[in-house]
């Protein structure tokens, strides 16, 4: 072991007053945060509101914050042992109490749990466990705490490795996706979640064209999703058209909406564009909500026809003169058939989106998008028309949003403006950015992480969006350029493996 590593693992002398001050400040801030909104609860009572106090929780929160921050400081100063013991002890006690509360609900042990909410109790136990484990790990490996840059560089390596492995990883993932419905664990619930995840993957890929490739910040993507959904629903109901005829129409309508909205605003820069697209997203929702004659407003449109498999319906008893899927193939009827079909449908749509993106990056227009993202002034100076180039990206992205929307309509059978709120746009954008902008496989991981995982915790409904928001913040702070941000140049002067490649770097 070299002298420097030995030095790095040695604990620094502890400055107790500074530690107390830092932890005390954090505790004070947490107290200030919790005092108003946690300390007092407004309860509805007949004739107005009443105040219920929860001061115990406020004090507890401050104490926990104090202890947690003190633990962090000790960790930073490389005093691993007290952190490990303290956090481990706390976690152990909490776990005993929590398990006790599960085994014997309403029993003695449950009464000792500090927080009112079970979820918060579990969270505290988990965080103490992580803190203790981290101290133990650092002690065992004698590793100095890595800084932000080391971590970022390490994740860059992972990102680059994943990008390179994508060649092998993608077919494996694809194979997995294709056989998923036939795996023994595939039940209705899992398939529903899978459909949802793949829908978001498709939307993420569609938005990736706009945000990742062309670098246009679109906060109103849900508008095109809505246009697609309503186009399909209205066309299908008024003109009695099938899903497969409406699908391209929905895409065209959404692309047209993209051109219409994009034309006036695409010369705006970054944040302004974001806020204007956000405004458009809200405008479309307000219009859908209030144009009652056309969209049935808040009542929504129901009875949207289901998709058919080359004209074969997925019903137990098909309509007169029609044949159903199970009759044609001589299968016994299963309600799962339709779900599996929907799953494959959205998978195919997503793959089309992906293939399209991968191919168009190699076309002049794709190259132009990426050039525009890097430097608009330079592009203008070599005679490109930035507006038209951006418009193509915007409308093509919108088109895929429209496809996604018509899939959504046909899956749900019912749509209303409630489904197209800003939060949807935010989620799709979060998937793109968290995955690492422009990274196709990053979108897949981010969608699984952000959509798939929370779906399994439906029981914690109340905490789901809270955790979603917190996760967005934490992932971004931890890794500001996205999980798998690694930008492989689309075109190389010296291709990989050629003798000149080394010289370049």
């Amino acid at each position, binding site marked *: 072991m070299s002298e420097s590593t030995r030095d790095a693992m040695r604990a620094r002398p502890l400055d107790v007053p500074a530690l107390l001050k830092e932890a005390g400040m954090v505790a004070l801030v947490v107290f200030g945060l919790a005092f*108003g909104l946690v300390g007092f609860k407004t309860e509805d009572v007949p004739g107005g509101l009443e105040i219920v106090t929860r001061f115990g929780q406020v004090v507890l929160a401050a104490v926990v914050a104090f202890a947690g921050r003190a633990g962090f400081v000790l960790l930073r100063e490389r005093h691993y042992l007290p952190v490990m013991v303290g956090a481990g002890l706390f976690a152990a006690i909490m776990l005993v109490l929590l398990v006790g509360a599960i085994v014997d609900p309403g029993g003695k042990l449950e009464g000792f749990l500090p927080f009112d909410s079970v979820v918060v109790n579990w969270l505290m136990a988990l965080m103490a466990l992580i803190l203790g484990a981290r101290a133990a790990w650092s002690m065992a490996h004698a590793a100095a705490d890595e800084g932000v840059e080391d971590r970022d560089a390490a994740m860059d390596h992972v990102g680059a490795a994943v990008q390179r492995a994508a060649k092998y990883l993608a077919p494996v993932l694809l194979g997995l996706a294709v056989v998923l419905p036939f795996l023994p664990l595939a039940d209705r619930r899992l398939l529903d979640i899978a459909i949802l995840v793949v829908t978001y993957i498709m939307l993420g890929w569609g938005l990736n064209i706009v945000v990742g490739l062309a670098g246009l910040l679109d906060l109103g993507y849900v508008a095109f999703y809505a246009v697609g959904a309503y186009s399909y629903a209205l066309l299908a109901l008024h003109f009695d058209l099938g899903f497969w005829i409406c699908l391209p129409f929905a895409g065209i309508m959404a692309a047209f909406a993209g051109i219409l909205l994009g034309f006036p605003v695409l010369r705006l*820069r970054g*944040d302004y564009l974001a806020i204007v697209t956000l405004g458009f997203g809200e405008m479309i929702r307000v219009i859908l909500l209030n144009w009652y004659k056309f969209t049935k407003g808040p009542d929504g449109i129901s009875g949207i026809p289901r998709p058919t498999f080359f004209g074969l319906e997925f019903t137990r008893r098909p309509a007169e003169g029609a044949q159903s899927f199970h009759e044609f193939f001589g299968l016994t009827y299963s309600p799962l058939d339709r779900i599996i079909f929907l799953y494959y449908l959205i998978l195919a749509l997503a793959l089309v989106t992906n293939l399209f993106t991968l191919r168009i990056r190699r076309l002049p227009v794709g190259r132009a998008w990426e050039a525009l993202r890097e430097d608009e002034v330079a592009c203008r100076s070599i005679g490109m028309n930035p507006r038209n180039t951006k418009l193509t990206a915007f409308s093509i992205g919108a088109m895929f949003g429209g496809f996604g929307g018509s899939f959504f309509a046909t899956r749900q059978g019912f749509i209303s403006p409630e489904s197209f709120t800003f939060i949807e746009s935010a989620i799709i954008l979060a998937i793109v950015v968290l995955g690492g902008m422009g990274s196709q496989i990053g979108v897949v991981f981010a969608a699984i992480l952000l959509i798939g995982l929370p779906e399994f915790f439906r029981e914690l409904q109340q*905490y789901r969006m809270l955790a979603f928001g917190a996760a967005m913040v934490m992932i971004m702070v931890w890794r500001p350029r996205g999980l798998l941000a690694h930008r492989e140049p689309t075109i190389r002067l010296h291709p990989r493996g050629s003798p000149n490649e080394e010289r370049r770097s």
Partner: protein
Amino acid sequence: MEYFIQQLINGLTLGMIYGLIAIGYTMVYGIIGMINFAHGEIFMIGAFVSIITFLLLGVFGIGWVPLAVLIVMITTMLLTSVYGWALERVAYRPLRHSPRLAALITAIGMSIFFQNYVQLLQGARVKPLQPVISGGFRFREEADFVITLSYLQVLIIVLTLVLMVVFTLVINKTALGRAQRACQQDLGMAALIGINVDRTISITFIMGAAMAAVAGLMFLMNYGVIDFYIGFLAGIKAFTAAVLGGIGSLPGAMLGGLLIGLIEGFWSAYFTVEYKDVAAFSILVLVLIFRPTGLLGKPDIEKV
């Protein structure tokens, strides 16, 4: 004519509230160049702290209205600014040198977090408050349409004007304001000449949050009901106001807020109330197309 004046008064009142929120957007954008998307949520938290304080005062039996409003205002400014400070410290400071998109995503994340945090802690139902200040001046009693200028509206307008004067003095006359203006011009250069940039930015967030808290209090008194979702629309409209006035410009934020308030008021009165939000956004689009720097903004020259 009477109807018009009444709508003018209502629109102005609303505009004052938007203007106060818009100041927070415009200051943050001016200094660190990001849209503090969670600012609307800070406004919402301010409204919640206000309603809780009002209820507490009711419990303690403090009934004298001016004192009650003053106590509520100070409490909500203090407690809400802690949220503003924590927001910057947790979600924005680690990302100051990262791509701008990263900060926008954390801002949206914080916005979602705050909404659900308040919903979880205070419940999803709308929270009503009995009118605190009632009555008002009545003009032209003899006409068909009586113009009312309620005491509450007077309070909102006067309070906003006072806050604006104080605020302008702070920005223009004090050392803190000088530091803020220096940071607005160039963060790196400000740090070189010995300005504590981190502290200045923190104080900017605290000031913005305090303004939003007062706006929350006014919103609560004006409408009488709040829920955890009010921050979203108010936040977007206030941002629209900031852009309309020219982002980074303080008088611009106030002017933009007043214009948005007036447009919304008149649109609801003379056209359809359902489409008032569409009207506000359409104005934003029009302004950005024909005057991208806003009404009072300075042109932003793009350097290579």
